[in-house]
């Protein structure tokens, strides 16, 4: 346990050293689950550093979260490393927060091509635009869907 914690602390230290002003928060929430909060303007630089210098070559998923009471969206990239065998259990959450009024972020498809479909889903489900995405269209929703982005909190579930 302690060994694992040292590894995660070391990882966070390395990221903070490289981006002292752009990484707003960094913590270890659970064993092998560190997370960092990055300013949206620098997400691509941080992602490139993670991929090229720290070996995070694999994107596990992208999640949008609607914190409507705080007036913001959070986008979470979960990423892991396959090339470092001893780091395979580690999943790093890279978070960015944007105001609900201007939901626009930089796409990371150029860093991790695997996030293409996840970003498309976040686009249609939350109405968040990913700038630089090669094909920002609806993925799961029907083409003629004209309702609001369904995973936003103001959209009530029919039986709720």
């Amino acid at each position, binding site marked *: 346990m302690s060994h694992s914690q040292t590894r995660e602390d070391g990882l966070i230290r390395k990221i903070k050293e490289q981006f002292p002003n752009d990484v707003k928060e960094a913590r270890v*929430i*659970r064993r*092998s*689950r560190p*997370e960092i909060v990055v300013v949206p303007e620098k997400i691509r630089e941080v992602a490139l550093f993670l991929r090229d210098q720290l070996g995070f*070559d*694999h*994107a*596990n*998923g992208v*999640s949008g*979260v*609607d914190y409507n009471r705080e007036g913001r969206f959070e986008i*979470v990239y*979960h990423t892991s490393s*396959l*090339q470092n*065998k001893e780091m*395979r*259990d580690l*999943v790093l*959450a890279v978070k960015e927060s944007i105001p609900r009024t201007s939901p626009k972020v930089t796409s990371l498809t150029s860093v*991790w*091509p*695997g*996030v*293409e*479909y*996840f970003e498309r889903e976040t686009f249609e*489900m939350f109405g968040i635009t990913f700038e630089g995405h090669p094909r920002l269209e*609806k*993925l*799961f*929703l*029907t083409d003629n869907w004209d309702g609001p982005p*369904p*995973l936003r909190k103001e*959209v009530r*579930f029919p*039986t*709720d």
Partner: protein
Amino acid sequence: MAVPEKPAPLAAVESAKTSESGAQTLTVSVGPQHSGSGHMRLIIELDGDIIVDAAPDPGYVHRGIEKICEVRNIIKSIPVIERPAIIDSSNLNHAYIKAIEELQGVEPPPRGKYLRCLLNEMNRIMSHLYWLSIYGVFLGHTTMFMWPLGDRELFIDLAERLTGARITHSYIVPGGVRRDLPQGLAEEAAKRTEYFEKRLDEYDKIFFNNPLFTSRSKGVGVLPKNQAIALGCTGPTLRGSGVDADLRKDEPYAAYSELDFEVPTRNEGDSYSRAVIRMDEMRESCKLIRQIVKEIPPGPIRRKAPIVVPRGEAYSRVESARGECSFYMIGEGGDKPYRVRYITGSYRNMAAIPVLLIGGHMADMPTAWWSVDYWPVEADR
């Protein structure tokens, strides 16, 4: 002599257009009516019989499970969590429960962990057999359709005796499992897995070593290792491209750290290697099942767990039959989660489908595509 009129295009042919090079290409829709198993569409652009572009078009079986989870009590969500892949339901269920337990800080008792692994491995075999039967029918091999579906009943019966349900078991609950091992099931499981391993040798003879299969799958739909990693592929698709990643080894959960098994990998990255890996995985699962029923510790199967999602975040993942199934759960202290993010193996492997198809022949499309074991319902959720 009058030139005969051009025949009307097939219903499946959407449009014909001319590419920049002057060659006429056709855009063909494969699906959405059960193009394999489950509704999804592949939009394929053809130059002659060569695929020049391919794009998956999912969403025909989207259920909005992430939204449903936000408005339901965590226990009520269990059956719907399992639905996306009813042939692999317990692995999906396991990932979901693991996220809740991580937030609650509850750990199941050792016997409960072993029972979870037991059902997970049965489900892995059931899922791979279902995949294999569809693969057989895709390649026109009727025997390979009948045999796996027949042999799948061996494990469905076992799962029914263990959980009370044939496919959607809802067996794994916060704190442990619902029911204990029934009397005689351990012996029966050992007997059936031994029989099934002999059957797998027969599968090899009739299908996997059969030139009808090997000549159509070797070198078809190649996914290079670096692309498999960059595209975020997972499960047998990733292992077929030479990456020995398996969460049961890399991040052992439940009782897997105490069990002895191998992770089959192959370097070719073609449809054949992805298919053979699933065969090897079924052999490993048989070994695991026998180990589990032999070494299962006595004791309670379930610990008390509150029906509440404590404030905080959790990211849990398990190795399901199609790869990593992960749950990102945010709790705010009530009996419903604030947000549930549900990502499955099929969803992640979807990115590999265009890579496998582009440049290949249309006739190789079923071989390449189904070798990923893309389950549309699991991808749409």
